[in-house]
């Protein structure tokens, strides 16, 4: 699960490679044109990394994390339309709203385990779906909220970044992603992160060591909600809108899939690889075959059944995973 902080010199290099890869992507001939798709990959990578604090590091099987992504998306859209049209305001609102919701829900589910935890996270996340769907005045109901333009950001008089431009927005997202990547790395390798891993390995033992495991699980839930919400806010700005289907539970399934597919349970960088493969292959599949969901479902099953430790787990020869 990554290395100790003292070995960061070694570990810093894959992080550099990841960021470098993303940074040069727009200049790759042919592929570089798919900027919107690439931006989506970066955003979902952030979401999956945040989610993995909970799944991979704490071992909590949340199946309702799409809720925080969705709350972030709506918070950004509502803030843009009603409070302050801009970039930083909506993104801040997305982060705070998702963080607060995650704290609230985390308080409810932190004592639960196993099946109860999974079922209750699904149920609670559905509440937000219905709220978005029915509360027309605020969320726009079925039609959703649109017209969220990407305005310019920058330091007045010194530098302006026209985010309406796809390339500029890609690098903007990438910069935020880089900061978050570093933050999440620090979090999971901090003493706090160590306790989370101890809870994953053996919660009873961790509690006997004097850690209040409920509080730590709660914390993990909230922290992962913060990053999920920020990702949701960035997504709203990418598609210039927020729709209720963003809160659909299949989104929660998708983020779990990305995290596992890449190998998030055995490698810190797994969720990034998973998100990239997932989004690109979904895009290709849906472009060529109307009934691509059939293939998607079957591939999903095969991946979970036969490579539960994900691609990086397979490459690294690790078959053990929290799933088994």
């Amino acid at each position, binding site marked *: 699960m990554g290395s100790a902080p003292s070995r960061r010199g070694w570990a810093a290099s894959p992080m550099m490679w990841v960021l470098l890869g993303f940074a040069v992507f727009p200049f790759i001939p042919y592929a570089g044109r798919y900027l919107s798709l690439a931006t989506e990959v970066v955003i979902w990578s952030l979401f999956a990394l945040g989610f993995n604090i909970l799944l991979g590091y704490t071992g909590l099987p949340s199946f309702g994390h799409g809720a925080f992504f969705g709350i972030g998306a709506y918070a950004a859209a509502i803030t843009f339309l009603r409070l302050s049209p801009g970039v930083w305001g909506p993104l801040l609102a997305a982060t705070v709203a998702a963080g607060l919701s995650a704290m609230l829900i985390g308080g*409810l589910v932190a004592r639960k385990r196993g099946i109860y935890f999974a079922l209750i996270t699904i149920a609670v996340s559905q509440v937000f779906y*219905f709220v978005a769907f029915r509360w027309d005045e605020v969320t726009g109901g079925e039609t959703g909220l649109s017209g969220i333009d990407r305005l310019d950001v920058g330091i007045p008089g010194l530098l302006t970044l026209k985010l309406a431009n796809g390339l500029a927005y890609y690098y903007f997202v990438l910069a935020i992603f880089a900061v978050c990547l570093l933050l999440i790395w620090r979090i999971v390798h901090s003493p706090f992160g160590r306790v989370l891993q101890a809870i994953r390995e053996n919660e009873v033992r961790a509690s006997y060591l004097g850690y209040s495991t409920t509080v730590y699980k709660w914390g993990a839930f909230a922290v992962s909600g913060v990053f999920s919400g920020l990702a949701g806010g960035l997504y709203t700005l990418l598609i210039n809108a927020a729709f209720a289907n963003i809160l659909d539970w299949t989104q929660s399934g998708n983020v779990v899939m990305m995290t596992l597919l890449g190998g998030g349970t055995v490698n810190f960088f797994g969720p990034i690889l998973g998100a990239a493969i997932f989004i690109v292959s979904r895009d290709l599949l849906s472009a060529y075959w109307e009934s691509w969901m059939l293939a998607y*479902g079957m591939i999903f099953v095969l991946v979970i059944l036969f490579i539960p430790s994900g691609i990086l787990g397979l490459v690294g020869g690790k078959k053990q995973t929290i799933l088994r």
Partner: protein
Amino acid sequence: MMELLSFAMNGLVLGLIFAVVAMGFTLILGVMQVINFTHGILFALGAYFAFSMQRYVGFWFALILAPLLVGLVGLVLERLVIHRIYGSNPLFGLLVTFGLATGLEELIRMIWGKTGYSVAAPKFAAGSVDLGFMIYSKYRLLLAALAILIILLVWLFLEKTPYGAIIRAGASDAEMVMALGKNLPRMRTFVFIIGSILAGVGGVIAAPLWSVRPTMGTAILMPAMIIVVLGGIGSFWGSVLAGLIVGLSTSISVMFWARISDIIPFVILIIVLLFRPRGLMGEKSVLEV
């Protein structure tokens, strides 16, 4: 007042359908510890099978045949895929069945098309009947009677037959059941088939109430999950009780404030869980480790 009564009756009927579907869900969850996302698909298949065969064999035969066919689908699913996930982390089973359900829903679309069909109630149950205190749809009454009959049959089977006893024992201590010489894998397959049949029968009887469409499986899954947690995982009467609560509260809230009717069951669930962490009738079980 009359209006309230008719909403309450509709809620009761809805609750009984929910209870039948949730019973199968909780049986599979309680015995195999699998959160079965394909349960909704099996429900939808029940409705589609009945819809396709009713023209040729009539209502009663379809009522028997369609669930049996769904049971067969359940057998295939269990033998091919689901038996591999017993004893793993709950997320594992949840994800496998989630993938299966996603794929199967698309398969339903490919076979029967994207649009929904409305199913007519059988001729002998068309129209309404005067109950003395209100006039009510004959088909809904028939449906309620069928649902109650099914609930009683399942209860009799679980409580009064030796096989039911083995299943209940398997839910509390699978290893011990195996040590006593019972064929555990076969029992699990059997339980999965029973659960599938219950989902299928729910689909058959619900078909004339709602239109038959590909998403109906996903639509029933969420109430089923809420009911199972609300009633207490693995608790038979718990899921019946919770089914009725969810059905009634959804239906009655439509009358007062329709927009929140989808959320009411969740609110009830959250409040109940704050005071009774294992649901209304749940007991401490192997599921929490």
